[in-house]
């Protein structure tokens, strides 16, 4: 039996609470995610999967309920400690990658290391090591806008794992990718899973949900788990 990594207890998130435009985005969700699992949160647009993933990744606090990660109740942490936790244990891959087009590949990759206080020489060493592993070392000084879609995808993955996280969170990572790029993306996720990472993907892309390495597909509808 694998040990629990993320435990959600009766988690609710309400936006604009008490106002006319109040939205219950996540409604009383309880969930137990094990270590080294690859989970897909599946659901249509507006189902609450991005909010749920943001709360798991310390980007948002719930309105009520408890989020416990590696034995720590992170939803109760003050902002400062929540940020530290996020920087240390999470890697993020966003929709459209969200890379900074005017910066070089190496500078983009090193971004998560700045708030961790990693020294410049060490930052460069860590980024080059990963760029080499993902066959991008020769592109280290290129601007993001000069890269192909596939290369940008790899830069986004490297940036997400450079801080050596325990958990990788990806929000609709294949939404704008063609079949070939989606497949290569999933292959990278497989490699990362094998290397010990836990991967949580929010997606409604059938290619992701049907991927062989996915342990569980959790369906969300109107902010609730669909059982």
């Amino acid at each position, binding site marked *: 039996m694998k040990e629990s990594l993320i435990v959600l*207890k009766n988690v609710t998130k309400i936006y604009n*609470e008490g106002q006319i435009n109040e939205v219950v985005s996540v409604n009383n969700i309880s969930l137990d995610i094990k270590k080294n699992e690859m989970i897909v949160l599946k659901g249509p647009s507006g189902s609450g999967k991005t909010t749920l993933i943001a709360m798991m990744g310390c980007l948002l*606090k719930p309105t*009520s309920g408890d989020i416990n990660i590696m034995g720590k109740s992170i939803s*109760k942490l*003050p902002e400062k400690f929540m940020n530290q936790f996020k920087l240390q244990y999470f890697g993020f891959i966003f929709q459209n990658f969200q890379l900074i087009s005017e910066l070089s590949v190496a500078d983009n990759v090193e971004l998560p290391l700045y708030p961790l206080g990693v020294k410049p020489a060490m930052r460069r060493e860590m980024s080059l090591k990963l760029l080499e592993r993902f066959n991008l070392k020769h592109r280290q000084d290129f601007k993001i806008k000069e890269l192909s879609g596939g290369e940008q995808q790899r830069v986004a993955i490297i940036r997400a794992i450079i801080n050596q996280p325990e958990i990788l969170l990806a929000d609709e990572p294949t939404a704008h990718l063609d079949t070939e790029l989606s497949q290569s993306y999933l292959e990278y996720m497989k490699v990362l899973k094998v290397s010990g990472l836990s991967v949580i993907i929010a997606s409604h892309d059938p290619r992701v949900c049907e991927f062989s390495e996915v342990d569980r597909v959790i369906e969300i509808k109107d902010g609730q788990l669909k059982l």
Partner: protein
Amino acid sequence: MIFHPWVIGIITGDFIILFLVLLGTVNAGIINKSWDFEQTTPLQYKLEKKTYLISAIMNFTMGVQITLLLLFVIAADEISAVLPGAMCATGALAASNYGFPLLFLKLFLGFLSFFWLIINYIDNQKENYPLIREKYQLLIILTPLFLLQSVLTLLFVSDLNPTVITSCCGVVFDEQQETIGGFLADMETAISLPILVGVYLLIAVKNNLFLKRSWWEKVPFIDILLWVSILGLGLATIINFTSIYIYEMPTHRCPFCLLQKEYYYLGIPIYLFLFLGVATGISKSITLRLEYLFKPGDQMHWFKRKLNKISLISISLFMVFVFTPFVLYFIKTGSRL
């Protein structure tokens, strides 16, 4: 009342502080009433969000309160220019019955604000808000004092009359006067100076050599007593000893003139190091007390050592600055006043 820019400035400053303190106090009451860190209810999450904001606002407010002490003295100095008989801040403060009480209150609130900032800092270093109730209770206790400060400020400025002749510092700090100023000026330096040096040495030795001796740490009030003593003795020394060597005049014992350009702003480092030394010294004793209650771990030890270091360096620099005018005068003339 005089509509001097500085008068308008200090009224505005005090009332902004009062408004922010009242805002903080109302929320402090709400947080204190319903706080339960173990809960994961919407109310508790709201309170956690609220305390983040209130604590940031109060940090700013307390910081401004400390800064306003200096601005108040500068304001009094500037206002003295329009009051007949006044030569410096002393004249302006003496022109109203509320001047000196207001100054003492501001000084007292300055120290209390500093202690609040220290408690808030310690609270922010922990994941579970261990001092949240204490810091907000202290804020609630302080609120009447902030209210009193605003009332005294209004009474002080409305009492200022440019047609009435006021006393200059030479009169207020005359040894013959039966006032606090006269009492401090008349203090026998042959007694007060050895006591000041003795208290300083006691603090320096105790905090340097006996830091690890636990019985000292179990009675932090001794430390607080020593720091309060050095504050009183330090202020007395500035008036009855240092000032006469700065002005090179045995009858001029003003504690404010030395803040002016003519005297190379010598008063600024003297007061700065005295107040910083005392504030950090007492804060160190507070952290010792809190350490026993909450055992926050290594971060507290580091912070305690830092406070200890700052307090010792500051008070040592104060001692240097307070005796330097005498030493220079003695080297120059070979005699004492």
